[in-house]
């Protein structure tokens, strides 16, 4: 079994390691800021997806929510993990509206509850906390894999992250596996007939379209992986 890899040079005692292969508060803020940046460009695509099988506001609503959130986090916001995640929840609930607000709000709130007392999240801890978030979404939306919802991206993502943590993968590798699984989950929604949400009113006409919720979820996980890798690269390049 491979040993856990680490980007930290612990031989130098004068260096306070920031990258001990675990997420801290600033990493979560960087994640949200990157998601906000990406949504500026991806909102139109998400809205296109949502126009095909929904009410056509997913991209613009999510972009607005993350813009407000990013501002609140950078503007003397909380620095502890659960405080940041809780602010994500309350902000998205009140700015996104609709199913996206309630479901992402629930996702972040359950992760906030799970991370109370932690100052850092390694791959295994993150897998557990993400699992709590995913469980919150599945129970609130009463959705399962195959219903053509964000759950189709979230559940494979959680499983991939958990497997990577069990293998002892680095956080970087674990997050890449999670993002790849979420992307694959998004693609898996294309042939599906929606069984939840307003797309389900369309019956079989909802097939042959990507689910916008699964698409935004995959973007969110990809943003976490990319922001962590950028931060780890910067640390290694010092």
């Amino acid at each position, binding site marked *: 079994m491979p040993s856990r890899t680490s980007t930290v040079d612990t031989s130098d005692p004068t260096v306070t390691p920031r990258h001990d292969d675990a997420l801290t508060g600033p990493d979560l803020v960087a994640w949200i800021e990157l998601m906000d940046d990406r949504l500026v460009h991806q909102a139109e695509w998400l809205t296109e997806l949502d126009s095909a099988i929904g009410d056509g506001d997913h991209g613009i609503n999510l972009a607005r929510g993350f813009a407000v959130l990013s501002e609140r986090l950078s503007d003397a916001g909380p620095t502890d993990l659960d405080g940041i995640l809780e602010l994500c929840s309350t902000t998205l609930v009140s700015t996104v509206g609709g199913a996206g607000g*309630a479901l992402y709000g629930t996702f972040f709130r359950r992760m906030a509850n799970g991370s109370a007392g932690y100052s850092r999240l390694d791959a295994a801890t993150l897998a557990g906390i993400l699992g709590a978030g995913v469980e919150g979404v599945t129970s609130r939306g009463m959705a399962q894999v195959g219903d053509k919802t964000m759950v189709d991206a979230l559940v494979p993502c959680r499983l991939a992250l958990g497997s990577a943590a069990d293998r002892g993968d680095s956080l970087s590798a674990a997050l890449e596996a999670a993002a790849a699984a979420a992307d694959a989950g998004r693609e898996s929604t294309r042939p599906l007939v929606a069984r*939840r*949400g307003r797309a389900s009113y369309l019956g079989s006409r909802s097939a042959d379209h990507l689910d916008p919720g699964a698409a935004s979820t995959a973007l969110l996980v990809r943003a976490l992986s990319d922001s962590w890798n950028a931060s780890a690269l910067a640390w290694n390049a010092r």
Partner: protein
Amino acid sequence: MERIGTRVERPVIGIVVVSHSPRLADAAVELARQMVQGDGPPMVVVAGVDGRFGTDAAAVAQAIDALADTGGVLVVPDLGSAVLSAEMALDLRRSSVEVVVGAGPFVESLAVGIPLAALGCPLDTVATAVATALSTTRRARSFRAAPDAVIPMP
């Protein structure tokens, strides 16, 4: 021996209306109020997000808390995501007043729920009436869809 049948004064229940649109909510409430003399039950309408279609779970939680001194709160959501917001509000509220998220269709729920609440019916009675509110319409229309009926799509 205790007397049986003593009337217990019980506060009227409150209703929180959760809609994607203020105009939809206001019109549905106005329609339902036709059957009520006087002010009707205490009600709060939570509709829209930032002037757009949508529902805000935090605002629903505040509305529930604002009705905390009633005899219980019935939440009446319109579309599915309003139901999600209503259920999330149960996590976010601070008061401990009894709350039921109504299981009936929006217009019928208000048309049945507001008059019954105004009459002083308890929360469980109103919630049951609301959950079966559509059956009256269905009976009138002789509509008998099987529970797993497949709706043919064009």
